């Protein structure tokens, strides 16, 4: 009996001690909310803002202990958020709208990339100078949502007779002359072409955004539940992320260094020149332009245009209301 | 002064031209001595082209005459004229020496 008493007392003491010791930890753990962010692709300057915010401690200052998950092929970012595998994700607007329209409880916290960077690139020597010259040519298109702006483009310019070739993950086919026109992101594939020895003046480019086909791309998403349960966390996340992007634009070289570190750490082979280009182009497509533009704002006209195309293509039945979809945080 | 030595009829002719004075008398003495020592016994001095003679020249002539005389030779004078003749006359030697008009005459007289 005394033994039992001693056991109880010892246990009690241990618990009390543990409680005393753990208290600050628990207290601190409460102070930093653990969240995660999954980008839609592998680490590169496309996600500089988040890397910078993480490195510079903006998330920490905002009370978030953020983990930057590795993104890439085979890990669709929005699905991860829907599945709960990540708190936040970056993703394309078109994809998000389709998921939302299909019932996924996805909300847009910030439209980061307000200007589309999608484009078609052709060699001048192939004789394609105007959109209509694409007729009869081999055009490389990416699958999925990447084919939407081109679809609108072809319709707009009455390009009916093209041979669409799937373009997968490299521009080698284009470089080796297997395509007359290739899809490219202005911040990525276009520069890869330049750094494969093609001079800009040897290329003709068709930028969809300049042709009135502006499908905003990267945005920040989370589950609606998270927003409802912890709006301050979402708000903090968005603010810190935007802060990260702002800092990136103001300190490009420092941001570049942070990006390069992350890139190398992830084992991806990348060079500084390419990331520097990507960073500069991200600034071009993220920075708000025009009257009433704000960093992170989703333009309702763009939203509606995208929605219309999606409906036309039969990808959605109806467009979710803007206010349901885009939750602008203070 | 120039001395031209020629030979005629076994006699040597010394033709003097220019001035025979204390400066030039040495040459003449040397020439005459050479002739005398080479065995010449008859010497004719041709004064035709001599412009002037001083007392030194006069002495030279007299000494030459005495020298030749001592060796059984003879000194003949030819072509004395003008100032040169005067000097001989003034000194009174003109009559004491064999004087001829030309060297040929002098030689012819032998």
């Amino acid at each position, binding site marked *: 009996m005394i033994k039992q008493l001693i056991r109880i007392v010892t246990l009690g003491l241990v618990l009390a001690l543990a409680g005393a010791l753990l208290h600050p930890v628990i207290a601190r753990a409460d102070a930093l909310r653990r969240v995660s962010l999954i980008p839609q692709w592998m680490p590169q300057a496309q996600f500089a803002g988040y890397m910078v915010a993480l490195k510079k401690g903006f998330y920490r200052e905002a009370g978030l202990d953020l983990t930057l998950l590795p993104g890439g092929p085979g890990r669709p970012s929005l699905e991860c958020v829907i599945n709960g595998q990540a708190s936040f994700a970056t993703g394309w607007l078109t994809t998000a709208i389709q998921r939302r329209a299909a019932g996924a409880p996805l909300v847009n916290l910030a439209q980061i990339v307000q200007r589309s960077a999608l484009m078609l690139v052709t060699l001048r020597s192939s004789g394609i100078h105007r959109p209509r010259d694409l007729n009869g040519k081999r055009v490389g298109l990416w699958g999925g949502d990447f084919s939407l702006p081109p679809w609108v483009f072809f319709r707009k310019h009455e390009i009916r007779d093209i041979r669409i070739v799937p373009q*997968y993950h490299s521009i080698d086919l284009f470089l080796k002359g297997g395509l007359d026109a290739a899809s490219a992101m202005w911040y990525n594939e276009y520069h890869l072409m*330049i750094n494969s020895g093609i001079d800009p003046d040897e290329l003709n480019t068709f930028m969809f955004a300049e042709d009135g086909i502006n499908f905003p791309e990267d945005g920040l998403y989370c589950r609606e539940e998270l927003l409802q349960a912890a709006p301050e966390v979402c708000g903090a996340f968005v603010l810190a992320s935007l802060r990260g992007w702002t800092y990136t634009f103001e300190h490009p070289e420092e941001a570049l260094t942070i990006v390069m570190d992350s890139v190398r750490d992830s084992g991806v082979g990348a*060079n500084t020149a390419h990331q520097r280009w990507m960073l500069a182009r991200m600034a071009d497509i993220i920075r708000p332009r025009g009257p009433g533009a704000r960093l992170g704002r989703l333009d309702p006209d763009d939203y509606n245009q995208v929605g219309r195309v999606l409906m036309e293509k039969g990808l959605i039945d109806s467009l979710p209301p803007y206010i349901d979809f885009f939750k602008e945080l203070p | 002064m120039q001395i031209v030595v020629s030979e005629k009829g076994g006699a040597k002719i010394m033709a003097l031209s220019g001035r025979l004075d204390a400066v030039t008398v040495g040459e003449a003495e040397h020439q005459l001595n050479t002739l005398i020592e080479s065995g010449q016994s008859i010497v004719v001095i041709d004064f035709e082209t001599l412009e002037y003679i001083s007392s030194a020249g006069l002495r030279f002539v007299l000494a030459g005459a005495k020298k030749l005389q001592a060796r059984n030779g003879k000194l003949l004078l030819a072509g004395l004229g003008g100032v040169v003749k005067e000097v001989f006359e003034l000194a009174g030697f003109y009559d004491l020496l064999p004087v001829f008009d030309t060297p040929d005459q002098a030689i012819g007289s032998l």
Partner: protein
Amino acid sequence: MRFFFGRSLATRMVLYVLGGTVLVFVIIMGDTYLSSRDIILQQARQNATDLADAMAQKIEKNMWGIAKVPQALAGFIEICDWTDKTLLKLIQRQVEDHPEIYGSAVAFEPGAYHPNQRSYAPYFYRTPIGIRFVQLATDNYDYFMMNWYHVPRTLGVADWSEPYLDEGGGGVIMSTYSVPFFQTGPEGGAPHIRGIITADVSLDWLSELIARISREKTGYAFLMSEFGTFIAHPRTEYIMRESVFSLAETYKEPELRKLGRDMIRKPEGFVGLNSILTDNKPAFLAYTRVQSTGWCLAVVFPKDELLNDLYVLNQRAAIMAGIGILLLFLIILLIARSITGPLRRIVQATARMAGGDLEIDLKDIRGRDEVGRLARSFDRMSTELKQYICDLTEATAARERIEGELNIAAQIQKSILPCCFPPFPDRDEFDLYAMMQPAREVAGDFYDFFFIDDDRLALIMADVSGKGIPASLFMMVSRTMLKSIATRGEPPDVVLAEANNLLCQGNDTVMFVTVFLAYYDVGTGRLTYANGGHNPALLLDSEGHVREFGQKKGAALGFMPDLPYQVGEMDLKTGETLVLYTDGVTEALSPEEEMFGEERFAALLGRNRGLALEDQGNRVGITLDEFQAGNQFDDITIMFMKRKR
């Protein structure tokens, strides 16, 4: 050991010789360096090109060999009947037999393997524990999207893929050779593609090859893909990350971008450049293409490495040249000193000699060269100079002695000739003045006057042939003789005859003397005279007329004995002056060789007749002096005697 830098022979020699040598050195070394450099660089170009070609060939051989394997398999698959098992065995065998192949797959077009099967791609690959098999066609892996399938399938031709990093980790660089295989179309139509046969190749051996070259002293190599990405490079951080274009972009070198474009387009090339591509060092770059893969192989020779040996050689040459010049400098200095040392001593000796110190000794300057000879001739010169000075001193002493004695002789002569005027102050019947100006210190002319009895005054004017000491000696003899004979009182002609005979004796030198002897009877004024070869006397009357007398004469005294003399008589009127003179007066020559002459003399006498006799004499002297311009050739003697009562 002082060197007068700037003006010394030593300095000049040093400067010129060294300067010339240095110049020659510089020219030779410069030319050698430049020529060597050109040769080296030329050879480097050749070497670089050759090396690049050799390496490219080596790589090509390998790649071409490897490519043959899937090509063969493609041929078999197209032509032969085969079963599933056979196919698998074939693929396995392919990998087994060719160690350079990492793995090989035969991937079929959708439905090409089996109408119901969308995809089929057996793959055999090498592991440390043997050949393993895997089916690439899985739900997770859509091989149709892969570059190794998609590109050759679209292009329709066999192709080496752009090098990539093996995903399996380990960072192995791989390239895949994909060969499309075909099926003939229905009814012999166009063949359509049925699938792709691959051979995966690790490119590690490339890195080894490149590294091996780079380990050698000069130069290094690198390999770029056909799009400029570095496949192998001494800087491992470039491999698969940077391309020549990304480097050009990062380091802002537009020229490098242009070069990169040339390198991936042109079959070969050679450039000199200084770029990040050559580690920012001036270098040569030779590039060529690997034919099958289109890769660009470049060989870089940094110029300084190439020229390193040359620099070292040049340095050595420069050092040796430097030492050589230093030695040369010392040698020249020594030589110069061996010349200037003795020269300076000679200079000092000369200065001392000029100062009068003739004692110099340069005998220790030996040597058979010019300097030695100079010293020796200088020595001789000083000896002879001493001798000469000695002789000169003696001669001068002797001459001074003679001059001294001459002066004494002149004084003696002068004192013998009566020169006290008036000589007979108590005789008022006449005035008498005579003067004699010798041409030299001692004279050949003389005059004399003495009473031979109460009434008769003997006057003698004489001229010995010649001048100077011989004449003066003869003059003394003849004067003495004449006086002693004349004082006996015989007539003048007799006196002359006797004097002549006496003078002829012992007169080997044939001296003769012209004499004008006159007796003047003081009471009667009658002159009795004889002339022995002398110039006539002059009579100057009170009107200034001058007439000669005494022209007829005998010969000069001393030539021949027993000669006749004539006597003449002349009366002197009161107031008339007898002038006796020697031919030094009338034959005085002006600088233009004009003779003073009898006429000028007569005119002079006429002009001055009124003066006292002494003054008249002085005037003659002065006039003749002027006339002769100071050059008196013959003695000038004049005697004036004027009858007063």
